[in-house]
């Protein structure tokens, strides 16, 4: 029983990473109504920018803020410039452009900063939290930041005019235009915000998994899984989903014999898929009523 408790806590700690990523994923899903497969690479690239800024002498706090601003601008750029020409193309064409973006960012990062693993500082320090060996101060800090972000997003979407406009623009762009919402700019804003959140996620994750161009790939998968599990319409669900994925992954690794390190991810994903078969809109997603 104690082992279970420990593993759950450890799972929550790793889950914080996935939760953060899942939040960025849901964020962009709310804005553009499909998944951004390049999200992980964008976050990775942002983290490298932060790294570079610190190499150039900027203190952590300034580098953090600058990176967020740059990432926001980058997100807007990607939406307004790269995705504009294929605006009317079918979804799958969009997916392929995401894939291309992924390849470009990964390759560029490797070229500029090479593929060796680098360490990345944490604002929380890496000492264990209150002496517990399961969760470090940094991991606790991650959980806190993720929850704060979540709170911010919750208020933003629920209680601000812009948040409502963004939701409308994503859900039904044609109707949104008919009420005067500038759909194009709402999409761009969504992209910018997602890029910024991704940057925060990357900066928080890097101290744990170390900085290198391929660091985000498996994390993005877990992030997707968490987002989908939580229901793509719900930021809170994404966070809960992310934590759940962390816990499930840890428990599966500990308690299912066949599962070594290699099968953890697929088993976790399969379990999530199993959940979805029974509850297709995710744990907290709102079932969209479709009247024929």
């Amino acid at each position, binding site marked *: 029983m104690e082992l279970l408790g420990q593993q759950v806590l450890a799972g929550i700690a790793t889950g914080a990473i996935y939760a953060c990523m899942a939040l960025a994923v849901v964020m962009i899903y709310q804005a553009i109504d499909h998944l951004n497969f390049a999200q992980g690479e964008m976050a990775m690239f942002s983290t490298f920018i932060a790294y570079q800024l610190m190499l150039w002498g900027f203190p952590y706090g300034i580098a953090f803020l600058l990176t967020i601003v740059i990432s926001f601008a980058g997100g807007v750029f990607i939406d307004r410039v790269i995705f504009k020409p294929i605006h009317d193309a079918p979804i799958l064409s969009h997916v392929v452009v995401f894939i291309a973006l992924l390849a470009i960012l990964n390759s560029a990062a490797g070229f500029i900063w090479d593929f060796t693993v680098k360490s990345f500082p944490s604002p929380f320090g890496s000492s264990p939290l209150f002496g517990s060996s399961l969760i470090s101060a940094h991991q606790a800090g991650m959980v806190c930041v993720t929850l704060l972000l979540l709170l911010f997003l919750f208020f933003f979407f629920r209680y601000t005019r812009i948040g*409502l406009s963004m939701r409308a623009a994503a859900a039904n762009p044609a109707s949104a*235009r008919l009420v005067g919402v500038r759909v194009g700019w709402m999409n761009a804003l969504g992209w910018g915000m997602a890029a910024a959140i991704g940057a925060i996620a990357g900066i928080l994750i890097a101290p744990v998994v170390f900085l290198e161009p391929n660091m985000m790939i498996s994390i993005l998968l877990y992030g997707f899984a968490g987002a989908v599990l939580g229901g793509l319409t719900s930021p809170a669900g994404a966070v809960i989903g992310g934590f759940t994925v962390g816990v499930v992954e840890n428990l599966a690794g500990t308690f299912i014999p066949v599962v070594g390190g290699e099968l953890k991810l697929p088993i976790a994903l399969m379990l999530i898929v199993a959940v979805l078969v029974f509850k297709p809109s995710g744990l907290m997603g709102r079932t969209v009523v479709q*009247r024929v």
Partner: protein
Amino acid sequence: MSTLLEVKGLVAGYGGIPALHGVDFSLQEGGVTTLLGANGAGKTTTLRALCGMIRARGEASFAGKRLIGMQTEDIVRLGIAHVPEGRGTFTRLTVEENLQLGAMTRRNGPDIKQDFERVYDHFPRLRQRRMQQAGTLSGGEQQMLAIGRALMLRPRLMLLDEPSFGLAPLVVREMFDILGGLNRNEKVSMLLVEQNASLALSLADTAYLLETGRIVTSGPAAQIREDEGVRRSYLGY
């Protein structure tokens, strides 16, 4: 009465296939004009062209401003509210959020609050269901919601695309009574597209008949209503 909307030689279509071949009509301030015609006549296309939702050529001016070439979002800011075909409800948002969105281009908080109350007074059932997901409302309620959303703009002109579609006769009657009241009491001008000709003619003062992208006949609604020849050949009753 001044002319609020003037359309001349409107040509529009979908992907290179023209649906309108030069349509002329006008609407007086404070009046209700109806566009009638069968399926595929081009009624919805006309409304979409006026709102910048599809590309169009020709002349369309609203209170002196040229509509052709303007973005939808800017046309809305001129005071034109479009209740689209199929209602266009934000199904995943609540009733209240839908109405809020209607007022998105307005700044005056107290005025908006007042309008919320007025819409709920017109449509009490919406007040009952304010926090419900709009997609769970019945067809009639969603239509009310769509009209309510348009009203939140405090529009000078309302474009209505087949508001009676798919609704039970009693519901439709109720809705048209409300529309009549809105026009008379709150001076909202309306351009009404309808397949249900008799209903439309009971509300409108002017009628235009569209057939395969052209106006074939027009005149005061009362006149069209009386004209048996027109009714038989074009309106089916």
